[in-house]
Every structure is written in C-alpha cells, then in structure tokens.
C-alpha cells in the first residue's frame, strides 16, 4: 500500500550537525544503518585521497560526504514531490537510502586505489562493492519496505522503473557532485567550489525524462558547472596531488602482486569486522610493514611517507575545442601502449617502475547537447533545451570544449634522461 506524502512523513530520530549543510535529519532506519560497523568505517576513508599533501584541511571523510549526499538527494526528492513527479514518500525514503549508501564500498584513499584494484578485476569498482555490501553484509537485515536489490540497483543505475533516478545519481547535475563540490571547497579552502545549493535544488525539474533547471536557476547552474571545472583544475588534477596518487597506486599494485594487499575478490570475502579495518589505516600499516622492501618498492614507500613528491617532467594541458587536440598531446598519449612504454624505457635507460603517466578523463564543461546526461534549461514559455544550446547562456559558449591534461613523472635524478627519451620516442620537446 502506498504511503501518501505529508510534511510529517519523514520522522527524524536524530539530527546531526554538518559543517556544509547544517542539521541533517536521520530516520530510525537510517540511524540503524549509520550505526553499523560497515558505515562507521567511512570515518576512516578520506574523501580526497592524497589531496591532504597539498591541502592540509582535506582530511574530511566519506562518512560526512555520504550524509551530505543524502541531504541533497532529500531536498531534490522533496522538490520533485512538490511537483507531483514523485507521489509517494516511500520513493523519497528509497532515494535517501541510495544516496546514504552510494559510497559504502569506497576503497581506502577513495578513488586512488580503485585504479590498481580494477586493473586486476573487471568488477573492482566501489559501485560494485557497494552493491555487494548492501546485499551481503549486516546491512541487508536493515531494509524493511524495500529490498537490498532495489537500493543497490539505484546506486548502480540499473533501476529501470524510474530512469530519472540514474540521472540523480550520475549526470551533469547529480547529488554526489553537488555535495562534494561544496564540501571539498569548504575543507580545502579553495573557494571556487562554492555553489548555490539552495537555488539549484529549488529550481530542479524533470522535463521528458531529462534533468532540467528552471530559468530562474540559470545563474546557479552556470556557476555550478564552472565551479566543477575550477575545482578539477585546482584540487582534483593538481599536479602534486596526482603525483602522490600515482605513487600510491604503484605501491598498492606491487603489494597486491606480492599477495600482501587485498585484491577485489579478497575484499569481497572479508567479514564485516575485517572490512571495517579495510580503510586508510590499513594502507598506512601496509606501508609501515613493507618499508624495508628492496628497490623500487622500498623507495616508493619511503617517498610516500616522507612526502617526497615525484618530479613532473612533462605536462601538456589545455582546452580542446571540437575534439581538436594539441598534436603533442596525441603523441604523448601513445605512452599508454605497452610496447611504446617499453621503448621509452629502453631508449631513456629509465626502468618502467620509475615512469609514471597520468592522463585523466577529458573534463567536459558540458555534456554533449544530445547526451542523456546533459542538463536542460526550461524557459519561461515552458519549452526546454540543453543548456549547451541555449544562446542566452554564457556557458553555451563553452560547448564542445573540454579540458585535457597529460603528465609524465619520475624521480629527480631521472629527469633529463626521461626528457630525452620523450623527445626521441614521441617528439615531445
């Protein structure tokens, strides 16, 4: 039987004060979930991985972010309920749970370790692990009206009954992004990430299964899109942050190869108690236990512990318009190909263990206009178009632009030899 929506439908058992959103209410069911050992683990998983090496304040946890994401989801779900797009308070509760649990399976140091873990297991993503935990850990006992399958399918964007739920979880304007931009700006002190969350959540609308924003929310949306771009440049793609990410990834991969660090299958087999301990502290313990290992592992670990950054010896970055890349960017991309990397190593005399390459996903300011994740603007006459095509929006000028970045790192003493190798192998001066 569907429960009708009313103001008192969400009864909060507890209020938690959050530095970004203020008071966040938790229902009885949500409180039980938060109090589990699986959720409490998130206190010891840093949201921003290795960013604290550059921004000392970046020590906030996935715990806070999970509560914040739930808060944002709740605001949007309530807004959609006011518009009669959601008609049932159970749907709001379901969305809140999905948001609360969307990062339950985050690896230590968040996305940093997902790279080496996924290299050895096609399922090795935090999303997949989150779904696994919801269905197999102590969490599975805590769902009453909804099944673990329902909640995990929303998180993994497989909830086909309401396609819009996928967009709320992952799109140009998803709840995850809204919280993390604000939170990361607040904790790092980088002010470019501050956005008008209130305005955004109050002007969101659904238009023919697309996420849209009303015209009066236009400036808030434009600010949000630019905020994301600036935060990526300043924090997430910061050259030193990326350098330490590469270092930790190499260390963890080597430890997995030696059977000293958990791979994905082993992580899935952990008991709830064991999984609680699979957090950032687990990694610090591994570093401590293996610091005496022979080269290169011992040196890599020592560098990470002592904040001895890798030297960035080559960087090609900039804005690409209409897919046109700098030729040097395309040439340097070839380093990803295994035989090209071997060639570079031979030519330069630098062991492959000491050649680090970073080429993050191109950062689009806006999704392509026709893409389903693209956000739309609803004009005063009720028609909507993708913001990328809206001539009244300054952000549309950035349509078809994306930020590209490509970097090579090594240790200081190898700099000159590797630069010569890059020039000889890829024509990069």
């Amino acid at each position: 039987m569907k429960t009708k929506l009313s103001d008192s439908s969400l009864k909060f058992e507890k209020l938690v004060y959050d530095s970004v959103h203020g008071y966040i209410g938790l229902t009885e069911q949500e409180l039980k979930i938060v109090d589990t050992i699986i959720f409490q683990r998130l206190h010891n998983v840093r949201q921003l991985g290795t960013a604290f090496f550059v921004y000392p304040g970046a020590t906030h946890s996935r715990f806070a972010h999970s509560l914040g994401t739930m808060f944002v989801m709740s605001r949007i779900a309530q807004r959609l309920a006011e518009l009669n797009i959601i008609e049932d308070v159970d749907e709001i509760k379901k969305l809140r749970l999905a948001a609360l649990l969307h990062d339950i399976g985050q690896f230590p140091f968040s996305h940093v370790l997902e790279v080496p873990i996924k290299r050895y297991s096609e399922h090795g993503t935090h999303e997949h692990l989150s779904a696994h935990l919801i269905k197999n850990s102590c969490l599975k006992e805590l769902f009453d009206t909804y099944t673990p399958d329902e909640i995990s399918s929303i998180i993994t964007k497989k909830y086909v009954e309401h396609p819009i739920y996928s967009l709320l979880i992952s799109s140009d304007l998803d709840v995850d992004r809204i919280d993390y931009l604000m939170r990361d700006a607040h904790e790092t002190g980088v002010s470019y990430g501050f956005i008008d969350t209130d305005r955004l959540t109050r002007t969101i609308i659904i238009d023919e299964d697309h996420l849209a924003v009303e015209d009066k929310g236009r400036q808030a949306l434009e600010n949000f899109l630019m905020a994301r771009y600036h935060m990526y440049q300043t924090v997430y793609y910061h050259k030193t942050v990326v350098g330490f990410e590469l270092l930790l990834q190499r260390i963890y991969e080597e430890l997995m190869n030696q059977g000293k660090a958990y791979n994905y299958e082993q992580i899935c087999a952990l008991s709830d108690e064991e999984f609680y301990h699979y957090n950032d502290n687990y990694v610090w313990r591994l570093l401590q236990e293996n610091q005496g290992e022979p080269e290169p592992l011992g040196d890599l670990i020592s560098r990470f512990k002592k904040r001895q950054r890798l030297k960035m010896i080559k960087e090609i970055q900039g804005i690409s318009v209409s897919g046109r890349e700098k030729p040097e960017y395309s040439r340097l991309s070839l380093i990803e190909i295994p035989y090209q990397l071997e060639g570079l190593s031979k030519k330069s005399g630098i062991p492959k263990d000491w050649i680090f390459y970073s080429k993050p996903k191109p950062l689009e300011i806006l999704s392509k206009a026709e893409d389903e994740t693209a956000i739309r603007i609803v004009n005063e006459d009720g028609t909507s178009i993708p913001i990328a095509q809206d001539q009244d929006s300054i952000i549309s000028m950035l349509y078809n632009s994306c930020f590209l970045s490509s970097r090579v790192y090594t240790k200081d003493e190898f700099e000159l030899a590797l630069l010569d190798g890059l020039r000889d192998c890829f024509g990069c001066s």
Partner: protein
Amino acid sequence: MTDETKFKLLAAFKRIGQRIDISDFNARLVFQKRVYLLQELGLQLGNGYGWYIRGPYSHDAASDGFQLQSIQDHLEPSRGLPELSQDELKSIEKFEKLISDSEKKFKGKNKTYIMELLGSLHFLLKYGYPSSGDKANALRKFYELKPQFKENAEAALELLEKYGL
C-alpha cells in the same frame, strides 16, 4: 576500463573492421551499445553500465572511446594491441553474426535504431528484471519506455535468445 582492457577493445574493433567513432551523438550511441553487447557476449572489458534514456550507457566507455579515438591511427599495424584469446575471438565472432542477422532482420532500419533496440531490450531483461519469471514485466517496461521499437521487440528478443543473451 583498465589500460589493458581499453586496448583489448581497440583490438576487438579492429577485428570487426570498425573504427572507434564518437564524432556525433549517433556514433556515440552506436559505440556505447557495441561495447555493451561485446561485453555481454563475453569480452571482459569491465565497464559498468547504467540505465539512461537511450538505454545502457557507461561513463567509462564514453571516456575511453574519446581516448582511443585519438590514438587508434598511431598504432603500428603489427604490434601494440593485446592478443585476443580463443574465447574472446569467439565472442567477437558471435557479435559479428548477431549484427549481421539483425541488419537482415530489420532491413531499412539504421544502425542507431538496431543498436538501441538490442541493447535496451537486453539490459531490461538482464538487469532491470533479472529473475527469469520477469520477462513479461521487462517487455511491459520496454513497450512503455520505447514504444517506437514495439513492432520489432519480439524479433529482437528471438535474436538475443539465439545468441545466448
């Protein structure tokens, strides 16, 4: 995708004589569904797909498509790509047959139509309504969300079943 699986995908596309093309929306849609079906037929690429308006979509596949597009022309023909195993070659062969059969079956329909039809129907059956007794619900939802494909849904279902999907 990991680096290795990314190049495996490129190897698979070269095998079927296709370029990685993400130049416009239709090309991106076809690319997405090709990758999805190759994966479902057994090529282990590790892309997580979600349900969006035009059917299964993967952010990782989208991003890797962009990166592969720019390097595919720079590879030496005889080296650079991983060897595909016998099982992977069989998966690719199945994919080619599926596409060939579907082009015959849905004559007059373009690639975008065919790929969205096959990919969306398969996703709903396997992930939307995974239990075997739920086929009726999966079809109901398919007709509701994609009425433009209704006339060809049964034929698409037969094809998917023929290839073990």
